Structure formats: structure tokens, C-alpha cells
């Protein structure tokens, strides 16, 4: 069986490479991909949408419909993780670990033992696997997280002019929360960014995207035709800025969706759906 698998892979790879030899040369200006539609996109992006970064225009406007579904794919991944992994009934581990904060001592409390109060300042619960109390990691991450989030907002807002946009910004935002979770623990993260928030915000993110398109439809134009938004934005009809703002609106939706779904998936994967002890 292994041999058959290996042979199939080798044959497929060889065929793919063999037929790739017919490809136009790398960077060939006369290849169909470079002469047919690309010039249209490059030349018209400023005129159509007033967005210098043509990648953003293609992604969020010319082929914005595809991107809407790509965002939905991200949300679906989050939903799938939740659907398959999440266990609502809490299976508490046989022993719990607590740290006595003033002395740094670790306590192991067997099942049935008396646990410290939930909001105790003296005892903090720690994960059973390995949780050294590292001042350096906690404080460095605390410092970094703010800047990561600020940079994420910059990336979301500047997708029109530089590489970036909703997906990248959303990933950065999500990773800042995940960083917090890694440097502290899952329970503390869940208190700051609840599972419900992640789930609802993910759906709302995609709703912002498709809702923007639907508003265009309600304004009488085709779905996702941002031009129709100009009366709502106080612009003259045919002003390319309407498309620019439309693109910005969907980028924000993408950022929300990607951020929340990243966090949601992390919650479910790191704790095997139990949301009790994470990485």
C-alpha cells in the first residue's frame, strides 16, 4: 500500500513537472496571463476605485465575490472546529494545581480537596502540565501585545496603499490574543475574550462583508456593486471613492472574522474542546 502511494505521488509529480515545461517563461510580458486581463486591472484600478494597490482592488472589488466566500471558509473552519471538538460537560482533571503568589509555591489539590476561592488573590490556578512562573515572559508579552494590535490596525487600514488588508490585519489581531493566552493561561484569556464573543464576532465579521454587498443590492445595483453606496456616503454618483469606501468596509469585516475565528480555533484546539487547560 505504501509503495502504491509513493508511486502515485511520483507519477503525479512527474506529470505536473513535465507539463509545466510548456509554461511561458517566468516574467514573460507576452504570456496570456500578463496580456489578457492584467493590464485592465492595473490600468483601471485608480480610475475605478481610487485604490493604488491593484491587488486590493482585485481581491475586494473585481473578484470581491470570491473573497466573501473565502472569508466564509475561514468562519466555516471555526464552526467545524467548534462542532467537532467542543465538549460542554466539564470533565475536571483529577488533581488541580495552584500557585501561592507571595511565596511562589505550587500546591497540588487532589479531587475532593478544598479549593481556594475563585477570585482569590493569593492563589492562582495553573495548568497541570508545566507552568513556570516567568516574570520576563509575562511582562514582555504584555508590552508587545499592544504594539502588535496597533500595527494590526495599521495593516487593516492601509490595505488600499500597501501590502496588507483585512486577512493580514485580522491574523495579527488574533495572534496578539493567542500570545496573551500562551504567556498567561487559557482561563484568564477566556475571561477577557469569551468564547461567545469570538463566535458571534466571527459571524458578524462575515455579515459586515455580505451585508455591505446586500446594501448595494437594496440600493438597486447588483450585489457588491459598491458604486451604489455613494448616496449613503454623501458622494456624487460615479465617484470612485464610493468603491474605495466599500472596499474598506469589507476589509473591516474580514479583519473581525479572521481575528475571532483564529482565537476560536485556538481555544478549541489547544484545550481539545474542553476550555479548561490550554497550552
Amino acid at each position, binding site marked *: 500500500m505504501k509503495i502504491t502511494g509513493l508511486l502515485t505521488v511520483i507519477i503525479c509529480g512527474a506529470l505536473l513537472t513535465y*507539463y509545466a515545461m510548456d509554461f511561458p517563461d517566468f516574467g514573460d510580458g507576452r504570456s496570456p496571463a500578463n496580456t489578457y486581463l492584467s493590464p485592465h486591472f492595473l490600468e483601471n484600478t485608480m480610475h475605478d476605485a481610487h485604490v493604488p494597490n491593484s491587488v486590493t482592488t482585485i481581491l475586494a472589488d473585481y473578484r470581491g*465575490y470570491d473573497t466573501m466566500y473565502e472569508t466564509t471558509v475561514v468562519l466555516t473552519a471555526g464552526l467545524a472546529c467548534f462542532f467537532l471538538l467542543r465538549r460542554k460537560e466539564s470533565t475536571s482533571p483529577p488533581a488541580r494545581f495552584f500557585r501561592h503568589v507571595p511565596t511562589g509555591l505550587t500546591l497540588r489539590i487532589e479531587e475532593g480537596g478544598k479549593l481556594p476561592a475563585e477570585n482569590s488573590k493569593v492563589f492562582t490556578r495553573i495548568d497541570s502540565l508545566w507552568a513556570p512562573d516567568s516574570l520576563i515572559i509575562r511582562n514582555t508579552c504584555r508590552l508587545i501585545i499592544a504594539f502588535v494590535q496597533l500595527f494590526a490596525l495599521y495593516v487593516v487600514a492601509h490595505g488600499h496603499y500597501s501590502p496588507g488588508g483585512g486577512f493580514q490585519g485580522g491574523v495579527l489581531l488574533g495572534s496578539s490574543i493567542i500570545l496573551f493566552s500562551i504567556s498567561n493561561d487559557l482561563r484568564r484569556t477566556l475571561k477577557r475574550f469569551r468564547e461567545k464573543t469570538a463566535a458571534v464576532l466571527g459571524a458578524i465579521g462575515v455579515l459586515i462583508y455580505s451585508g455591505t454587498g*446586500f446594501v448595494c443590492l437594496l440600493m438597486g445595483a447588483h450585489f457588491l456593486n459598491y458604486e451604489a453606496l455613494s448616496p449613503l456616503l454623501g458622494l456624487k454618483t460615479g465617484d470612485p471613492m464610493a468603491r474605495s469606501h466599500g472596499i474598506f468596509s469589507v476589509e473591516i469585516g474580514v479583519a473581525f472574522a479572521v481575528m475571532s475565528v483564529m482565537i476560536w480555533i485556538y481555544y478549541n484546539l489547544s484545550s481539545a474542546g474542553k476550555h479548561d487547560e490550554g497550552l
Partner: protein
Amino acid sequence: MIRHLPALLVIVPLLTALTVSALSWVAPRLCLPLTFGCIGASLASSIGILVEVIKSGPVVYTMGGWSAPVGIVYVIDYLSAPVLVVVTAVALINLIASSKQIDRDFSDKKGTFYTLYILFVTGMVGIVATGDAFNLYVLLEIAALTGYSLIGIGHERAPLSSLNYLFIGTIGASFYLLGVGYLYIATGSLNMADLARFMAMPEHGTSTMVMFAFIICMTGLFIKMGLFPLHGWLPNAYSYASPASSALVAPLTTKVMIYAMIRVGLYVFTPAYVFGRLQVGGAMVWIAVAAIVFGSLLALAQKSLFKMLTYIVIAEVGYMVGGFFLGNRMGITGSALHIINDAAMTLCLFLAAGAITYRTKSDDFKDLKGLFHQMPFTMTAFTVGALAVIGVPPTCGFFSKWYLIIGGIQAGHYGYAAALIFSSLVNAVLFFRIFETAYFDQPGDGKGHHHGHHKHHKHKNKMVEAPVSMIVPLMITALGLIALGIYTGDIVTHVIQAAIPGGIA
């Protein structure tokens, strides 16, 4: 709003899915009515579009106001309109029939189940409606991802077989994507109509790159539809899942993938290229023959109902792939008609099997004894479905099989015609074996005789029919099989004949 119907068909389910997803955390009681409303609205709008298409020809809708090839267009023509109706109707009927099953299997995650359910339908509808080769891939991803997760919850090895399906399915989807990539490198376009225009040019007709694009696109779709010998993922994935999911995914996934194959074959690569230049028809029909024979024989070897049905699905895939690659009008008509009929037949059989397992908790053949007396309505519908699969008139299965056999004979491919007849005979054996057990055998035969036969008999034959919410949709489906058979003539002359491009004899 009529002119926006093609967009609303996909957008309304998408918006509803997102709302349901958010509401499941806030107001879970609203999820079910919303789901019903949205699937019902999809069915209504797809019927509306079908009427519109029959009245005044194909409908084109440009997304974002960018016309092809710059933007993405939706094209709903004679081929896609009937499939749209089938997809939404199957989704609605199964939703009604499975409501009790959903309560039982997904009680704590119903909101998410509904969200995934609607998203799956959105993906399927989108695949059928789109006129853009890349957009098809994106929607394929939605349909596949939701399908994997719906199937992942069930009994025994459901998560493992879903994981298996995920690996294989992802390879299939990537192959399709690679093929689209090769086509883009060769032509610079992603729009289907535009690609078909390029295919008429001699430099593309002879390009090896385009040929490879065809091979890899089709291989991807074959993996996705479970064509023998690429079917390994299918039986376990469909038989271990919860019946609420498998009765949705099994009738739709394979059929919509066959639709995609016909769409890509006829409207992207064009018949002149596929049947004229490449000459792959003969070889493909032989593979289909192998699929039919293999599927039928393995169905015969199964000992439980769902497993048997999954192997019948594999044989049916062979019917449709073979019919398409015969390359003549009769064969392709039969293939397209069989998409509709087979979706209905598979739905009927899976719903009946679902109702049986809902009551008996087992789908093993030996637990079917005396079922005709215990569940008369379910078994009647099951019988109608079985007769359709065997191909007994006036059920719809007979007519599409008729077109396929005539197509095989016209193309001079007697092996294919013989395989169809062989498969029908095997199906007859399969189902009559079940009828025999379920009608003549008494439950508990071989044990419990000392109880006093009469009393025992009476007790066991009490009617324990499935809930009404399961029986009514099941009965509607069974009647639908007969109605589809009676109206075959109209469906073929008004819809399917117009869907096949001229130039196919």
C-alpha cells in the same frame, strides 16, 4: 427583485447562515424557524428561476457590476436551473424529515448544525449557479468543509472516516484548482464562457498544457464524486454519519460533482475538444463500466443497509460518468436526467433507512425482519425507492436508464449497455432479498419459540412507525419519484434538450 434572483438564491442562505450562527449564542430558539424560512425561500427562488429560464432563456447576473471576464458572473441556464431546484428541494425535505433526528444527535449544538447545513446548501447552490471556473472552486471548498464537519459526528468510526474524506477530498479539490491554474496560465481567463471561446482557437486546442489541465480538472472532480477506483472515502463517510447529515450529503455531493463534470466538459472544454480532439470517451466509458460492476457486486456483499446504499451510489456515479462520456445526445441526456432522478432516489432510500434506524437503532439486515408489519409506511416508500433504483416503470429510474442504454447502443458501446442491465439485475436481487427478510421473516425467528408462538408474534408485529415528521416527507419523496417518471417527457424536451449544446449528435 426578479432580476436579482440569481444572487438572492445564494445570498439569502449565506446571510441567514451567518445570522443563525450568531443567534445560536443569543437566542437559540430562533434558529430553526430561520433555517426553514431560508431553505424554503431558496427552493421558491430556484423554482422561480427555472420558470424564468424556460420562459425566456438563460439568466446572467454580474457580481459587483463587473461583466465577464473582468468580474464574476452567475449563469443560470437549462442545465443548472433544474439542478438548483433539486438541490434546494432535497435540502428542504431532509430538513423536515430529520428534525427529530437532529434533536437526538446534535442536541447541544443545534445552532451550529443548522449553520453548517445552510452553508452546505449555499455552497452546492453556488457551484451549480456559477459561471466562473475559480468561483466554482471557492464554493466547492465551502460545500466540502461543511460536508466534512456534518459527517464527522455519528457512530463508530465517523470522525475517522470524515478525516479520511477530508484528506482525499482536499486532494480532489486541489487537483481541480491546479487544472484551473493551468488553464489560466494558458489563456489568462477564468470565466467559463470566455474559456470556451479560447478553446475554439487552434493554438489552445493542440496545447499539451490545456490537455493536462483537462486531465487534472477531471481527475479532481472524479475524486470528489467517488468514481471507481477513486471512491475509497465514500462508503465509510456516508454510512457512519448521523442519518440527518448523510441524507443531505449523500444525494447532493456526488450529483453536484457530476453536474460540475458536465458543466466543465461541455461549457469550458467544449464537446469538440473533449469528444473530438482528445478521444478520451471510450476509455472513460470502460472505467464507468468497471465502476458499475464493482459498485453493484460490492453492494451485494454488504450486510447492513447504509453500507449497501453507499455502494449503490458508487454504481450510480458510474452510470452518469459513462453516459456523459458516450458523447452522444442520448447519453448526455440520460446522464443529466439521472442527476435529478438519482438525487431523488438516493434521498428516498437514505430517508427510509434513516427512519428505520431511528426506530430499530440498527441497520443490520438481520434486524430488518418483519419490518413491513412494523413500519408499513416507511417500507412502502423504501419499496418505491428500490423499484426506482432497479429501474421499474413508471418510476423515474426506468426512464433515465432507458436513455443511457439507448445512448450506449447508439454509440456502439455494448459493454456499457450490458453493465447497466447487469447492475439493474443485481439491484433487483439486492432489494428483493431485503423485501423477503422484511416481509416474510418474523422478528425474533430462531429464538423465543418457547414463549408460545402466537403471543410473541402478535406482540412483535405491533406497528412502531417512525414519527409523522419523518413519514410525510418520505412519502412526498416517494411520490416525487413516480411524478418525475411520469413527467420525464416534459423535463427532457423543455429543459434538458436545450441544455445540451448543438453539434452533439
